[in-house]
């Protein structure tokens, strides 16, 4: 780790000012909020910039607001704020719960939702969970604002569609309707998660699942939804889901793209996907029946 090389710090008070700075300095400037990834890249000497553009003084960028049935998390909202947000606890309880297990308490006090998503480390929880919440990201630039579905936003490890002149301003989540039972499981020995599974089953008045949402993260280059699983699960009762959990999990595992890395081989990750999708189904089924599964597995966080 080398020392930080000198840079200037700009603290614009509006998106327009940020845009102007980006236009003026281009690759010599970097957007900065919590800095939990950026400062490490600068210290490692992997990135050199002349200026940091601090987003934390742009009003409204850190707010968590409800907006016609969706919930919008401002890009500079800190994990700690997400963890304690009453709105999220009420509308997207899983999001508040998962935020509590991001990295460690110090990173949660400083790191932001936008920084996490824009860095797009394949081994992280938020993108996986947000994918199951049909998240849509808002990218602002002087040329205008565009909305990108999270599934299209992340192209691969550390690669997103965000252009250099664009600022990620927020992420819009579509909370699951009332009567949805959900679970997030994260497994791994390392500092960062090796596997993330988000499962949400919305149970209709007739007791049938309509729809189910399943996202799997960390095992491949980007988080992935499991459309086959979701089709198979739709229309079935939760009990039926639990009954066919093994087969459904197997199908989901076969469909995901897994890549080997320091966290494990591709086939191990595929089998862990099978194991934890099944466990997620069992937990969701138990929760649907009003039981507290208080399932505990080694090196696993169940939210």
């Amino acid at each position, binding site marked *: 780790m080398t*020392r930080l*090389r000198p840079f200037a710090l700009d603290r614009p008070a509006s998106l327009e000012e940020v845009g102007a700075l980006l236009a003026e300095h281009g690759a010599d400037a970097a957007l900065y909020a919590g800095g939990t990834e950026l400062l490490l890249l600068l210290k490692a000497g992997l990135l050199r910039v002349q200026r940091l553009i601090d987003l934390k003084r742009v009003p409204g960028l850190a707010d968590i607001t409800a907006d016609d049935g969706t919930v919008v998390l401002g890009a500079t909202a800190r994990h700690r704020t997400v963890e304690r947000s009453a709105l999220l606890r009420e509308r997207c309880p899983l999001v508040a719960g998962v935020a509590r297990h991001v990295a460690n308490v110090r990173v949660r006090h400083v790191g932001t939702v936008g920084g996490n998503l824009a860095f797009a480390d394949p081994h992280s929880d938020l993108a996986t969970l947000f994918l199951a919440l049909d998240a849509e990201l808002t990218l602002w630039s002087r040329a205008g604002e565009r909305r990108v579905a999270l599934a299209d936003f992340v192209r691969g490890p550390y690669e997103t569609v965000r252009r250099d002149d664009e600022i990620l301003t927020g992420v819009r989540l579509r909370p699951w309707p009332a009567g949805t039972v959900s679970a997030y499981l994260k497994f791994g*020995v390392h500092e*960062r998660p090796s596997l993330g599974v988000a499962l949400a089953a919305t149970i209709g008045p007739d007791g049938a699942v309509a729809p189910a949402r399943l996202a799997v993260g960390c095992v491949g280059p980007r988080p992935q939804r499991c459309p086959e699983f979701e089709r198979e699960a739709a229309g079935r009762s939760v009990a039926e889901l639990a009954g066919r959990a093994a087969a459904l999990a197997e199908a989901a595992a076969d469909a995901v793209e897994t890549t080997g890395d320091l966290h494990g081989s591709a086939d191990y990750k595929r089998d862990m996907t099978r194991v934890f999708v099944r466990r997620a189904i069992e937990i969701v089924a138990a929760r649907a029946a009003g039981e507290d599964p208080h399932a505990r*597995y*080694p090196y696993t966080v169940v939210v």
Partner: protein
Amino acid sequence: MRRGARGDGVSGPGPLRVVGQSVRRVDALEKVTGRARYVTDLELPGMLHVTLVRSPYAHARLVRLDTQAATGVPGVRAVVGSGDLTGCDPYFGPAFRDRPILAIDVVRYEGEPVVAVVADDEGAAAEAAALVDVAYEELPAVTTLEEALAPGAPLVHTAEPLAGHFADLSTLRAKPGTNICHQFDFERGRGAAAFADAHLILEDTYTFPRVQHYSMEPHAAVAAWNEAGELTVWASTQNPYSVRVELAKMFDVPLGRIRIVVPLLGGGFGGKTYAKLEPIVGALARMTGRPVRLALSAEEAFRTVRRCDARVRARLGFTREGLLLAAECDADFDVGAYADIGPRIIQKGTYTATGPYRVPHVRLHSNAVYTNTTPGGAFRGFGVPQLAWAIESVLDEAARRLDHDPVELRRQNLLAHGEEFAPGDAPIDGKFEESLNRAAHAIRWTQGAAADRGRGVAMMLKASIGPTVSEAIVRLHADASATVLASAVEMGQGARTVMAQIAAEVLAIPVGRVFVATPDTAVTPYDQTTSSSRSTTMTGRAVQEAAADVRDQLLHVASGRLGVPAARLRLEDGAVVGASERLAYPDVLEERFGMGGGELIGRGVVAPGRSAAPLGGSTPFWEMAVGAAEIVVDEETGAITVEKYVSVADVGRCINPLQCEAQDEGAVLQGLGHTLLEEMLYERGQLLNANLVDYRVPRAEDLPRVLECRFVENADGAGPFGAKGAGEGSLVPVAPAVGNALSRLTGVRLRELPLTPERVWRALRARRAGP
């Protein structure tokens, strides 16, 4: 009475007042208030900062060095390659002087220092370092034992290695034309021939991974020469006196001109033994005429030292009744690019391969093998963990084949108290069966585990260093306070507190009135090293003798003054007391010196010297510990959870029970590191995971639900008040105990550490797939 394990203390001469109590650490206050100072905190006026430019290649020739741009950076004082290191021997190393201060002509591992940049601040140094342009021509590298030992393998070292400074390694036996830089052989009885009479013979090969000490304080050193040509180095080192020898040889000056000062260490675990950064800062301080500071990053510590990984083929022969008849071991240790103390590790680790058991016929062989990776060095256990992982696993397999209970099989083979381990070496100095029984009892071995739980047990034996020397001085001041001058380094294990307790006990004064000086070769007398669990025993006894020397002087002077024979006087609460007489120490000194000043100086020397023992000197004590683990396995993910772990160590006497407990709890967690989590991963010579994101050091959540560290205290040790060494032993049994528990529970025998979830998962899948 403070909480802490109550040793079933054997009463020495009268009840002990301070020894055996969990007194408050003498360095606790400065550590909890943030006032404690480590080398990395040191600032000297005019001090320059060093950044090292390191090789990205595992093996390459240095073609060209362009430092022109770097020297232009404002604040840079010097940009130094090996060619610029004039006026000193550029090689160092305890066994072989094979390690260059900066790479000479060739780099032998990824991360090896090539150029040093010295500047006013770390920012300028780092900026200049990035501008140093080194042209390399890659050479074929060997990065595993298999590659390094293959016939015709590229050689890590081509020239004949120069002998190092330490006499006992003068019998170094490199194998010319190979990557083997030392070999060790040991035979007893009829050796391998005895296998012919064995009822059961079991053989298997186990491997132990490359792991990192990961002291929380990476290596750091500050050096300064004065006008009189004397070098002072403030170093984060465990053996100032070895470093002093290496620097005196390097700069060709008398030992007295080199001064090594060791404030507190932020952990060591063996990784800070022998010279590491001291040569480079010494050389740069001389070149620049300014004090020079080098503090490594955590990533750089991964490229400085590591534990030697090993491949051990073990073969055990048993009689029908389960008695060990013969043992054969071939161990290859990967010592990395430079030998460091590797040659002594392969000797020490292999010598007690047969553990605490009686094995009449033995043939042991080990090799120290060079590879193009971070140099291996001493690490808690010093070769014994690598051997015990193999032997204790094969022993457990034998118990299964002989249908013996694993505890029973061990019990019936244990060496007895007083029995000979090897001709010429110290007899066994502990009742090992007590430790085994207590461990088995604590884990409720005989009640059998629940269906979903597996239990495993393992033992270990380790010799400490012999010949060895520890000297100490105790000074009793006129106000009845005392200063202890001893060179035991405080690296968290509590040595400073132990020395204070020993001196306070002998001098009958409160611990708070005893001050233990910072190790400083210009002040504190010679001590060979702070490693091998030897400080309490050897340095402790030297302190005890020095304090006793002061005691005898007190009694002698008081006897004269009181007219009572010294034999009928004793020390109590800072005074010499007889049947009815009492003379406080200040008065005794007043009597002795005729004035209010002066001090009584006592000296202690402990030097058991050479013996006919196979390693050149008898071990001053045997370190023996037992580990018993109870685990649960999530068979779907392969994840092992250690639900309960019991460690029992035969320590003779806990000078400070709470510190012994904390040491052994730390040893168990560090053992769980290489058992379940840690491994340095190389890909074609490049180290991929030199940081905490990708190298998993145990955390609080890895703490077994139940962790009990207990001690057998029969006051039968050679140390003060019957103490023996502790702190390394409890780490060794962790891996085999967990491996044996896994085998008992799942029938899967893994021979490679760490037992990661994926490795266990793969083995379980293979077992389900059947033969």
